[in-house]
């Protein structure tokens, strides 16, 4: 009996992870990736990063953003991610990250 109740509680908890939560997690993840990528571009522009490292980080950032993008349905957030990936310099990436943070806050509020 205790085992069954525990299983039900676990399933209910699992059910709390909805599509909305998935989108929010993706938006927050993408926000961080944009910030990470921006930091890489800024430091690379100042000649402070090995080239193999910065190239690999750029490729990884694109890949991770593309993966997060699939779960983002909010139009504004989606456009922000798409635009940032096209013009990936430190400034535009940082600005895109801030816009995405606002979008994530909106998603969280709803």
């Amino acid at each position: 009996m205790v085992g069954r109740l525990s299983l039900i509680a676990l399933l209910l908890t699992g059910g709390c992870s909805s599509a909305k939560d998935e989108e929010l997690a993706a938006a927050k993840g993408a926000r961080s990736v944009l910030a990470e990528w921006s930091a890489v571009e800024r430091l690379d522009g100042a000649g402070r990063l090995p080239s193999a490292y910065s190239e690999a980080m750029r490729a990884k950032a694109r890949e991770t953003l593309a993966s997060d993008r699939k779960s983002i349905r909010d139009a504004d957030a989606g456009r922000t991610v798409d635009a940032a990936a096209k013009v990936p310099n430190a400034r535009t990436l940082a600005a895109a990250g801030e816009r995405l943070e606002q979008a994530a806050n909106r998603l969280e509020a709803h």
Partner: protein
Amino acid sequence: MKLTELFLGILTAVGGFVDVSELVFMSQAGSRFGYALIWVVVLSTVGIMVFGEMSGRVAAIAKQPVFNLMRNRLGLRLGLITLIASFVSNLITCAAEIGGVALVLQLLTGAPMRLMAVAATAAFIATVWFLPFKWIERTYGLLGLFMLVFGAALVAIHPPWGQIAGGMVPQVPRGLSTRDMIAFAYFAVALLSAVMFPYETYFYSSGGIEDEWGPKDLGINKLTTIVGFSLGSLLAIALLASAAQLFGPAGISPEMVGTVALQAGVPFGKIGILLALLGMLFAIGGAAIETCLANAYSLGQFFGWRWGRHRPPREAPRFTLSWMAIFVVALVIVLTGVEPVELAEYAVVASILVLPLTYLPLLLLAGDRAYMRVHANGLLSKTLGWGFYVLIVVAALAALPLFLLTSGGQL
């Protein structure tokens, strides 16, 4: 007590303290909650000291590894449940470490990640096949000391030392939303798990048998666990504090393993990045070998096989085939494309679920005078041991719901 032995043991413990899960979770915790989770790292370090010291003492006095004695104390059924649970947890952890190493090699060389995963696994197999146990442990542990660059980086960015010290006091930040409060609890559990990974005690205990520890080595055991783990935890705290200082204000909660190296890149530039990547390579690589061998030790000890790297591979054939197969299976998991960061998250949750099963037999054995004679747990060890055990059980019960509610700390 041999001073050289002690010195090398402590340095090995420091260099080997951090693995991919700690790299990821320390950075994310610092970025999100500032210095407020430092006390959890301190508390968890005391926990691993307590159980690490016990596992070394059991190896030195009972001359039997934990899994051997566990089966006799718990019996076949509960012993099998513990074996299977810890095996799965360690296998996921091993895959996370191999994936982490592959990512670091990609960052160093620019070569494709999957190719680097295969190359790294081949290197690990060669390391374990050809090197004797002591040199396996020491090579990666000592080279992992490149991680000290993160300590230097923290000093270089002039953090608020008062706030860092304040973070060592148990606290929950004020004004957190319900969601953030749940996330705080998740990170507290995750950090506890990342520091107290079960593979560490299995490996340490089996290593004590490999090194033929006896009563004369109890002093080395105590000092290695206390001093080595303390210094190692300072490194972990440096990762958290740097993230609080550098990443939090920038909105970075590292989604990519390579981002952690920026903590050294910001103050030191290219040389900082290179040293950080080298440190990560050997620290994570050492953890990959430890998790694999921990599983092979568990199998060998549970089923009574010949085991150990103190004998040539062909003299312990089932043990040898086991660790080779475990590396290959872990590699296959990495090659499926699961992100190492995601694997690290699963590893941490899987490990905390297993911790109560892992530490209970150790606690019982270390306190059993029939095995331990005058070296059985005294009042302090008993109090700390049972106190931490209650904490671990609470954390284990909370882990899965917290993981699901926060989508693995993402919400």
